[in-house]
C-alpha cells in the first residue's frame, strides 16, 4: 500500500505494508541513514526522530500511524534553533565517541531544549535516560545540554 509521509519539509510516497516501522522507511526505502537502528523495541533511543516536534522512537512507529504528521530527522534538526544549539554544544564540548547513538541523543536533547529552555538535571535524566550510549558519553551529554541551555539564557 502506498503512504505519503512528510519528512524534513519534503513529501515522499512509499509503497510498503502499513505496519512497517518508520525507521526502515527512512533508512532502507528513502536512504536517509542518519537515523540509526539499535534495538527495534524502543529500548535504546538510537532511532529517535521528531514527530510534530515530539521525540519519538521510529523503530516502533508504524508508517500507517503517521497521518499528516511532520517528521524531522537528524539530517534536518540543525535547521531548528534548538537543534542547532545542541549540535554546536555537542561539538564545543566534544561529546561524540563512536558516534552511532548520537543522532538519537541529539534528537532527544533537541526536543528537550525546544520544550524546556532551562532543563534541570532531573529534566535531563527524564528526557535522556531512554537513550543508551555504550561509549558512556553521558557525562558530556549532560554538560553539553547545560551548555546549550546557557546560550538560551544569553538570549542566543
Amino acid at each position, binding site marked *: 500500500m502506498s503512504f505519503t509521509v512528510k519528512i524534513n519539509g519534503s513529501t515522499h510516497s512509499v509503497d*510498503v*505494508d502499513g*505496519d*512497517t*516501522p518508520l*525507521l*526502515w*522507511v527512512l*533508512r*532502507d*526505502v528513502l*536512504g*536517509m*541513514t*542518519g537515523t*540509526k*537502528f*539499535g*534495538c*527495534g*523495541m524502543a*529500548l*535504546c533511543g*538510537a532511532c529517535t526522530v521528531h514527530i510534530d516536534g515530539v521525540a519519538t522512537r521510529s523503530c516502533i512507529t508504524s508508517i500507517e500511524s503517521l497521518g499528516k504528521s511532520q517528521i524531522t*530527522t*537528524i*539530517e534536518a534538526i*540543525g535547521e531548528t534553533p534548538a537543534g542547532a544549539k545542541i*549540535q554546536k554544544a*555537542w*561539538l564545543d564540548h*566534544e*561529546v*561524540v*565517541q*563512536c*558516534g*552511532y*547513538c*548520537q*543522532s538519537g541523543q*541529539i534528537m532527544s536533547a533537541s526536543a528537550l531544549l525546544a520544550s524546556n529552555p532551562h532543563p534541570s538535571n532531573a529534566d*535531563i*535524566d*527524564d528526557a*535522556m*535516560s*531512554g*537513550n*543508551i*550510549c*555504550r*561509549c*558512556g*558519553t*553521558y*557525562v*558530556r*551529554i*549532560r554538560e553539553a545540554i547545560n551548555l546549550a541551555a546557557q546560550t538560551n539564557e544569553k538570549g542566543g
Partner: protein
Amino acid sequence: MIPDRIAFRASDTNLSRRSFLGTSAAIGGGLILSLNLPLGQSKAANSDSFAPNAFIRIGSDGQVVLTMPYVEMGQGTYTSIPMLIAEELDVSLKQVRLEHAPPNEKLYANPLLGVQATGNSNAMRGAWKPLREAGATARMMLVAAAAKRWGVDAKSCRTQDGEVIHVPTGRRLKYGEVVAEAAHMPVPGNVTLKSPGDFKLIGTRAKRLDAPAKVNGTALYGIDARPAGVKIATLAQSPVFGGRVKSVDATGAKAVKGVRQIVRLDDAVAVVADHMGAAKKGLAALKIEWDDGQHAKLGTEEIARELEQATLGSGAVAQNIGDADKAMASATTKVEASYQVPFLAHATMEPMNCTVHFPKDECEIWLGNQAVARVQAMAAKEAGLPPEKVIVHNHLIGGGFGRRLEADGAVRAVQIAKHVDGPVKVVWTREEDIQHDMFRPYWFDRISAGLDDQGRPLAWKNRFAGSSVIARWLPPAFKDGLDPDSIEGAIDLVYDLPNLHVEFVRVEPPGIPTAFWRSVGPSHNVFVTESFIDELAAAAKQDAVAYRRALLDKSPRAKAVLDLAAEKAGWGQALPKGRGRGVSLQFAFGSWLAQVAEVEVSKEGAVRIRRVVCAMDCGTVVNPDTVQAQLQSGIIFGATAALYGEITLKNGRVEQTNFDTYQMLRMNEAPSIEVHIVKSSEPPGGMGETGTSAIVPAIANAIYAASGKRLRKMPVDASLLKQA
C-alpha cells in the same frame, strides 16, 4: 577529511606508486584502488606526489594524506594519530587527510600485536614511534629537496606550517612545490624526533576530526552502506550453539510484502527483502525447526562447575616469585577466596552487520571492522577466492569493544550472499546480536594469601580457569598453556609481593565462542586482584589505601596515582550512612591508574554509583581530552558490567535477548567522573580499556565499605546486599 568508505584491493598494482621510497620494495600488493571520501574528496595518488613511506603521501597541492593503519571506533585515533604525523611534519592538523590502510599485514601490522588490528589499547603505543618517524623522515626529505634547489645547506633551513624556510634569507617553499624533488632524495637512515619541549600539537586538546559528521547524521558506518540495488537480509541462527536447521516452512514469510528470498544455511536461515521491516516481518513468519545438537542441555552452572573443578588441579605457571607455599606455611594469617566473572556480550550500539556482493569471480564487502586483513582472509576462504579478489570497504565503527576484531559476521554474510543475486546487506537484530555474540569468557579464580604478624602479604597464590581468546585468534601467541592477555593484571603486580605463584588453566566452554571484550584479561584479573588486596587490608584491619601504599616502594608511578586519587577523592573523610568509598590500583595496557568509587547501597540492596575519581599516568599525553573521554567511557562500560552485565545459558540457549534483559547503564545512573592526569614524558601507555577493568573492583570495594558485604561474583547481586 575522514574516510567513511574506502575501497582497496590488495593485489592491484596498476596504480603508480613509484615514489614509495624506502619501504616501497616491500609493498607488493596493498595499493589503493579507489577512494570514496564523502567528507572531503582525496586526489588519487599521482605521479608527482611524494610518498616516503607507507603512511604518508604529499601531493603537489601540499595535501598530506595519512594512510591510517588504525580504525576509529570512538577512541579518537582518527585525531590522535594524525597529530603525530602533523607534529613531526610541521603541518597543521587541517592539512592532514586520512585514508584507511588496505589489508596488508606487512605494511600495516600493529608493531605490538604483529597483525593489522586495532585493539588491546595499543594504537597509540604502536604508532608513537613509527608514525612520528614517518613524519620526521618526510620532513627531512622535503628540507633536503628545498635546500638542493636553493643550493644551500639543509641545516640552514627550518620548517613551519607546511613550508620549508631558508633562515638566513627568509626564502620559503611550500611542501607541495618540492614534492617531485623530495621523492628523489635519499631516505635518511636516522631521523631526530622533536623533543617534548618543542611539541606544538602533541599535548593539546585538538578537536576531534570525526565529530562534525557524527552530529549531523552524515557519518557512515558499515550498516549505512547502500551499494546500488542492495537488498536487506536478517537472520535466525541456531539458538543452541552448534545446532542445525531441521526444517523450514517459508510459506508465511514469502507472503510478506517486500520479501524476496529465503536463504537456508546449515545452521541459520536468512530472509532477504527490500527493507529491514519486511525482512524482520518475514523472519517472524518463518517456521523453523532446529536440531539442537549436543549442547541442548548446556547451562551456565555446568560451565562454572567445570571451571571451579579446574582450579583444583594445576595449570600453566604464569609467574613465580620466591616460594609461595613455604611462605604460606609460615604465615600468621591465611586468607582464601574464590571469585567468578560471567560471560558478557559486547552490545555495540551498531548491531552486527555486513554487506556483501559476490558475483562469483570476486567478492566485495562493506563493514566496519577492527581487523580488515582478518576479514579479507576469512571471507576469501569462505568465498573460495584468493584474498586479492576480496575487496573490503571499511567504515567508521559504531562500537568495537573487541567485537569487531572478529570476522564471523563477514563469513556469515558471504554464506548468505552466495545465494543472492546482487548485493545483500545482512543486519543482525539486536536479539541475534546479543544471543550470537562471541562472549567475554567466564572465569573462575581461586586465590589465597598468607600475612605476617604485621598484616603484610608474605605469600600470594592465584589459580584461575577460563577460555583463552588468543589461542583461537592468534594461535602462535598461545604458548606453553599461556597467553599474554589471559594473565595480564594477574602477574607483574604493582605490589611488592616476595612470594607469588600464579597459574592459568585453559578451559574452553563447550560450543560457546569467546572473544576479546574491552579490557579482556584485566577485566577479570584486576577485579580479582584488587578485590583480594582489599580483603587482605580488611583482614589486617588496615585502611585500604594505606595498606596498598605500604606495598608500593618499588612502584613509584603506582604510588603517585594512588596518592593523587585518594587526595582528590577525599579519602578518609566521613560519608553518610549507606555510602562507601572503594579504591582500585592497576597497571595494565602500559598505564597506571587509580580509581576511587563512591557508592550508595540502599536498604533494598540497590547500588548507586555516585562519583568516580581517577588518577592516571599514561606517560606522554597526546590529547588530554581524549584521555579524559576514554576514562569516562571505560568507567561507564565497566560500571555497566559490574551492575548488570551477565550472559547466562539455559538449555543451550542464551537467556538474554535485548536491552530489557541485558541492561545498560543509562544517563540517570551515570556517576560524576573526575579525571586527574599525572604529567609525564615517558612514552604513551594505552587508554581505551584501562577505565573498564579498574572500575569493577573499585565498585565492589566501595560496596564492601558501604555495606560490609564482600561481592566475589559479578555482576552485583542486590539480593545479597538487602538489609534483613
